[in-house]
Every structure is written in C-alpha cells, then in structure tokens.
C-alpha cells in the first residue's frame, strides 16, 4: 500500500513526538523531578501512531501503564502531560494520577491503567455505548503481550465477538512482560491465533513499520465502523528501554538489547523510507524534529510553571456530585 506525503509526515511527527516525550521524561526522572514510576514507549511508537491516525476525537481508547505514546497519538496536550508527571495542579489529573493514570477524556482517551489487562473490558464497554446509542464511534484497547494472558482479555474478546461490538484489540507484543519473555509466556508463536477462538479476525503485523500498522488498523477500523465487529491486531515490537526507568534488565543480554534496538526502530525506518520513496527530504524531517523539540521545550517550561497539586480538597474529589 502506498501512503501519501501528508500522512507519512504526520505519522512521522507523531512518532517523533512520542520518542522525544519519552526522552525528556526519562531525563526529568533522572533529575528527580518525576516521582513514582515511568515506563518508556520508545521503540513502539509506530503502533500508537499507526492506529490512532484512523481515530476521531470522539472515538475512545484505553491505554496501559506504558501509556504516554497512546495519549500523544490520541492528541493530548504535552504541557498537561508533563504537568501531570511533575505533580502539578495543571496536569491532566491535577497530580492525582501520575504517569500510570493519565486520561484525556476530551480526546476520547479513557485513561492509562496500572492494572495489566484492566483497560480491555472498559474499551469493550465503550464500544457497547456506541452500539447501544447507534453512533459510528469505535473503541480501541491497547495492551501488551503480558495482558493477553489475563482473564479480562478472554472474557472481553468473547463478549465483543458475540455482540459484534465496534472495538479493536491492539496487542503490543514487545517481547517481554516485565522480565518474562513471550517465549516463556505462550506455547504458541503467534498471539493472533487466539482470535479464532472467539470467532473474530486476528491480524499480525510488523509493529515497527508504521505503514503496515496503519494499513492493518485501517482494515480493522473499517470493519468496526461498518458494524462488522471486533478485530484482534497483534503488532510485533520491542521496547528500547527497560520495563521501567531503572530496570537493571538482568533478564536480557547487552547484545540482545543493542541488536534489537537497531532492528526495531520505527523512527529510523520511517526516515529511511520517507526519503527513499521521495515523500520528503532529510531537511523536511529535520524541520519536523526541530518543531517537535521546541514543542517539548515549551511544554516542559509551561508544566514547570504550574502550581503544585493542591491537597486541600482531596476528600471532595472522590465522588461526583
């Protein structure tokens, strides 16, 4: 499939933004400005970018502990994201959530989730809303290979299949669930085969090639929008960093890490094919890079100016009135 210049550059920009966001948040974490835990999405950018390119603001996603990329691809404000990580009142969740709990309901992001597999039923329910109210919205659930062994995966995919819900299950197979390699977590080579147990299509795609992700996601989105039901989309990928910031990665060899990082770099790949296919030149891409860098700088500066989250009314924040 061919991809046009505008789409290619937009996909590139989104991926570049995610990578830069991760680089900067890693840096801020190292400077002890970010508290708690962060999980870098570096290396997996093509998945969020390729899928979310098809979504409208009123489509919903559920995300994971490794959620910055999904959030950005769904159109979030970077300043509010950084402000959240920095524990500011101006953050998306007013400092209550942190990295594992950023939501942006204005863009249909129902939230990151600290419970592995926790978002899968929620996306299913969002798709139920669309079906029930007769809209053409759809829902996407992003989750990892690890989450595919949770009971929520099983129950949700079955519900979606029998009800033909407009939902796409995007399994990001980054080869590990914390320290456990997929090879030891599954007795099957291809996670997508599970789809057949629910009677839904299962697609496996090279998750480092944003064109392929984009194409497969387009198919799944078309199916969902036209009432044809759910899809399981498994994207093979690799996380460049450890499971979390500070992971000693005892379970991986240096060789593996270096080799795979190079083989799985959706951004470097994209630069290469964009130039090779003459969709744009190096200069265009560098301009995008500079724009992204500036945007990140501005976002961090804005976030750092925000007041610390206020503890005054926490008890009133529990219930809606």
């Amino acid at each position, binding site marked *: 499939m061919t991809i046009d210049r505008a789409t290619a550059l937009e996909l590139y920009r989104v991926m570049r933004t995610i990578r830069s966001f991760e680089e900067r948040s890693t840096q801020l974490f190292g400077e002890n400005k970010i508290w708690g835990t962060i999980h870098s999405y570096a290396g997996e950018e093509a998945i969020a970018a390729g899928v979310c390119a098809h979504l*409208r603001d*009123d489509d*919903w996603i*559920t995300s994971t502990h490794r959620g910055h990329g999904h959030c950005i691809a769904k159109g979030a404000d970077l300043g509010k994201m950084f402000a959240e990580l920095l524990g500011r009142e101006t*953050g*998306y*969740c*007013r*400092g*209550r*959530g942190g990295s594992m*709990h*950023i*939501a*942006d*309901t*204005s863009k*249909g992001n*129902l*939230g990151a*989730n*600290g*419970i592995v597999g*926790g978002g*899968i*039923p*929620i*996306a*299913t*329910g*969002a*798709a*139920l*809303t*669309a*079906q*029930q*109210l*007769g*809209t*053409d*919205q759809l*829902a996407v659930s992003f989750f990892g290979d690890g989450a595919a062994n949770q*009971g*929520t995966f*099983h*129950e*949700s995919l*079955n*519900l979606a299949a*029998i*009800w033909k819900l407009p939902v796409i299950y995007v399994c990001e197979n980054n080869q590990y669930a914390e320290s456990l390699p997929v090879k030891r977590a599954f007795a099957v080579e291809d996670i997508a085969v599970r789809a057949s147990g629910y009677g839904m299509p299962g697609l496996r795609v090279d998750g480092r090639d944003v064109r392929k992700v984009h194409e497969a996601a387009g198919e799944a989105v078309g199916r969902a929008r036209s009432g044809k039901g759910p899809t399981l989309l498994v994207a093979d990928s690799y996380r460049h960093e450890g499971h979390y910031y500070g992971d000693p990665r005892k379970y991986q060899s240096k060789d593996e890490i270096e080799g795979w990082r190079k083989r799985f770099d959706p951004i470097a790949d994209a630069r290469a094919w964009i130039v090779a296919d003459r969709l744009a030149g190096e200069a265009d891409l560098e301009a995008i890079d500079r724009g992204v860098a500036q945007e990140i700088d501005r976002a961090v500066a804005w976030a750092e100016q925000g007041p610390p989250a206020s503890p005054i009314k926490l008890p009133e*924040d*529990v*219930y*809606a*009135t």
Partner: protein
Amino acid sequence: MPPKTATTTEPRPGAGGQSSSTREMFYNEALNEALRLEMERDERVIVIGEDIAEHGGAFQVTAGLLDRFGPTRIRQTPISEIGIVGAAVGAALTGLRPIVELMYVDFSGLAMDQIVNQAAQNRFMFGGQARVPMVLRTQGGSGRGNAAQHSKSLEAWFAHVAGLKLVMPATPADAKGLLTAAIRDDNPVIFLEHKLLYRTKGAVPEGEHVVPLGQADIKREGTDLTIVTWSREVLFALEAAATLADQGIAAEVVDVRTLVPLDKARILASVRKTHRVLVVHEAIKRGGYGAEIAAMIAEEAFDELDAPPKRLAGLDTPIPYAQHLEKSVVPQAGDIVAAAKELVG
C-alpha cells in the same frame, strides 16, 4: 463526554414529587418496578447480567423487562463476571447508565478489580475528568441452603473502598426508592439485596419514589436501647423489638439503609436518646461493618453511653449448608432479644 452523534434525549423529569398512594408488593417486584420506571424515563439505562432475559434473573428482579425493552437494553451475558463489570465501567464512562446484575455477591471476588481499581477510583485518579454512573446490583446472605459460596454478606469489603456508595434496603418501599436514587446517582453504587427478602411484602409508593442515599430510617422508636442494623436483620430486629416490648423494654430500631454515605447524625441522635447500643448484622463479626459503626459511636458519643457498645453478628465461619447449621451461625430474632436484655439488664 456525550457521544457526538448520540441520539439520546435527556431523561424526562419525573412525574413530580412523591406519590402518596401505595400498593402492596414483594421486594423483588418493587425492584422490578424501579428498574422499569427508570428505563422508561432514561434510555441510557441498561441492564447487563447473567440469566436476566427470558429467565428474568435468578430472583426474578428483571422479570418481564426483556419483553418491554428488548435484548439490547436487557443484555444477557455469558458467565464472565470481570468482563461484564468492566464493560459496565466503560459504558458508564461513555454515556450509558448501566446496571449490572451480579447473581451472588459471593462472585464479586471475580470482579473486584474492575469494581475497585477501575469504577471506584476512576474519578479521583483522573482528576475528576469523568463520572461512572453505574449500579452493581447483587444479593447476599444466608438462609436458603446455598452454602459457603452463595451465602456471604460482603458489605464490609465495599464499605472499605473509597469511591463506592453502598446501599442495603430492608423493605420493598426502600428497595424501590433507593434503587431509583442509585440509578440516578453519578457514582458507582453497590446495591446489595438479600435473598430472603425478595419474597417479603410491604406497601410501596406508586409511581416515582426516591429515597435519597445517606439517610437512615427509624423503623421503630424506643427509649431503652438502640439497635442499629440493616438488610434482613432489620426484620429480625423488629421481631425482637416486639418481643422486648412485651417484656417492658423499648428498643429503637435504626435501619442504616445506606452504609456509605452513613447517616451518622441519625444514629448518634438515637444513641443520645437511649444511651445503649447494639449493632447487629449477618456478616461475620470480625472486620464487619458493625465494627465501623460501633467504633464510630464509641469515638463520637462515648460520654453518652451507659454500657459498652455491643455487636451481635455472624460467627467467624463460612456459612454451612444444613438448615439448622445455617441458622446457628447467623443472628436470629431470639439472639437479638437475648443480647438486648443483657445490654439493658
């Protein structure tokens, strides 16, 4: 976040004010009526659960609703507790007002993650971005020989979760009024029925009937001691109070009705009047919600108490099967009488 192309209309306002005429009905019929009226009033209200369609629910609470509202609003599901509850959370976040029927509260151990980590905490974690207007209806309690996996009383688990409301009606009228309020609430509400209350009868207001969450109800007035209780034990307490009255002891029976938010004011007012309190519940005593109420009273009305705040609750055992065993582990009316006399005497 109302869906862009949604075709829902806002719910039409209620008929206005509470009806004064009443009709005798069973507790499960009263619940059924609340569901029907709210589903008629607001098309965003749907019911999700196992066995709720043709069969009408394990306790016939949804009987007839399939015919009235069809299979998309009465969504019968496979056996997938966490999937269902999670789907309700997602639906609630995006514009529906789902009511989940979980067949037995004992099964909540399968869905607890979605109840707690997702439904209850969503609003707080995400800084108030969303609302989770859902009701989890289920039933608990012993008395039908269903044994240890179908007879527990687990309100203490839910009470200990920030972000949930918790309701346990004892009468048909309260069942209807509180369920209506729960459905209209914008928070996740755990609504616990009792399997032995379904076939109890009482006068229920016709038409729209709302009992606001957070108000205890004095089911019988008295001056000698306060019995604080809820759910089926309210009936035992009333039975005990009648016996006690014959023996010259005037017990006041406070039906808590809503465990969260708790109507501390009404409970404390009663204690200030009687100076003695007996907290009664069916759940096992250790860590039961009776401890919360007794501790709260001890803390806030210590000087008003003429006797130690006493708890009468289930034995710290699972519920056994055989009928006589089952009764022996859960407070019966006679046990309440005995405990009250000890407290007063």
